[in-house]
């Protein structure tokens, strides 16, 4: 697919040149320095993304979230070599969406899940604490 490789090139050089230091700085400078790169050979509906400094923690959870998307035909993740901290995610989608959109939806879905878990966890804990507190008083 020489054409797709070529079309992806300007994208990549732009990412390499512009990303560092220009982002909004959060409270975590270590996290901020890392970057995402689209690996060569990507098309709209099939792409591999490289995440610097990520591992199985994010990789497997993200893979699951993306696989739950009906428009995704394939999603898998790999850490090509254990000694460099890079994680690759491969996404292939149907024509109804793009790989990038599927990836973004994956992140959104995971964040929604985090909210739900937090909410249910706190309410279960508060209820448990209240009940065990009552038991102690009796």
């Amino acid at each position: 697919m020489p054409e797709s490789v070529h079309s992806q090139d300007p994208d990549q050089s732009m990412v390499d040149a512009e990303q560092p230091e220009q982002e909004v700085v959060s409270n975590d400078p270590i996290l901020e320095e890392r970057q995402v790169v689209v690996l060569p050979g990507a098309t709209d509906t099939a792409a591999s993304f490289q995440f610097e400094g990520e591992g199985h923690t994010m990789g497997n959870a993200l893979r699951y979230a993306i696989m739950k998307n009906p428009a995704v035909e394939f999603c898998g993740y790999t850490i090509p070599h254990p000694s460099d901290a890079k994680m690759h995610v491969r996404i292939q989608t149907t024509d109804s969406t793009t790989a990038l959109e599927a990836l973004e939806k994956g992140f959104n879905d995971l964040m929604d899940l985090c909210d739900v878990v937090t909410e249910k966890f706190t309410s279960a804990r508060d209820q448990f604490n209240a009940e065990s507190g009552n038991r102690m008083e009796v």
Partner: protein
Amino acid sequence: MAPLVPSQEELQRRRIIGINAETVTNIPSTDFPGHWPGESHGWAVDEFQKVEFHRNDQFEASFSLIGLDASVANAFRRILMAEIPTIAIEDVFIHNNTSVIQDEVLAQRLGLIPLKGSVEGINWMQWFKKATEEGGEEDGPCDFNTIVLHLDMECYKNEHAAKDEQDPRKLYTNAHVYAKDLMFTPVGRQEQYFVGDGAIAPVNPDILIAKMRPGQAIQMELHCQKGIGADHAKFSPVATASYRLLPDIKIERPIIGDDAKKFAKCFPKGVIGLEPVTSAEAAQRGSGYEGHSGEQKAVVKDAFSDTVSRECLRHDEFKDKVKLGRVRDHFIFNVESTGQFDSDVLFLEAVKVLKLKCNRWKRGLTDLMA
């Protein structure tokens, strides 16, 4: 076409991972679109059913997360161990150490001592940026990235000790150096954050650091920094963070009488109970209870406490009568804090970290969109 909805029995069957004497069955998750023809299985947050608490002590909590995939539960567990920041001793400046324990060994021991302090203060602290090989410059130690502790001890003879005293702790003063001897000296804004109970101190004051004899002394300055468990285990906020799947025991055909007693002994106490066979059961034809009215039968009382040792599968008399398994989406977490944070807060932190990471990467994507 509306998606097919599988029956409750079918869903329940899919939830159980089978455990045989030597093998496991029905292992991978299949809840993906396209796996089961006609069924939807798209993303839905309401698949996460609930949280059940079993125990919530300050430094140890146990709870179940029900309706989650292993990949997400595992992400929480991994984050708990390796990606929640804490404070630990990082740099050790030894001015004097004439004790028998070597400098480098002493430094390593000190690093592993869990420290506590005001949570607000720890969250306020920033990373200490180290010099990198690519020429990145090191931050100097500042009030917002370094906490300074001092250890200054000298051992000498105790003049008031009894003549026949054998205990070196009474014979000498400062024969043992403990974690409680670490002295915190707040600088700058640390004086506002780490005051009173919020002062930086070891969680366990009685950790033995070194032993000395008269004439020996230790003098050093210790710099504590913020870090994560992925960098070094001393930064890990948990002693253990683990999950197991809820065990599932199905008695498929009656186990009665002496067999029932033997069956109960195959499991930890309380997992299997004995109940008398009712006359109604005995009257039912084909139930396997005919003529056994009043005898003891084995029933599952508390599968939660089972260890899934598979002992019962080693006995021929229980063959085909029992089926062991685990519930795929019921994770029983156990989180034990090292003392810097409360155990329930730690889990909430883990969820927060996962969300933060997602958010950060999502922002990184906007550059790819252009």
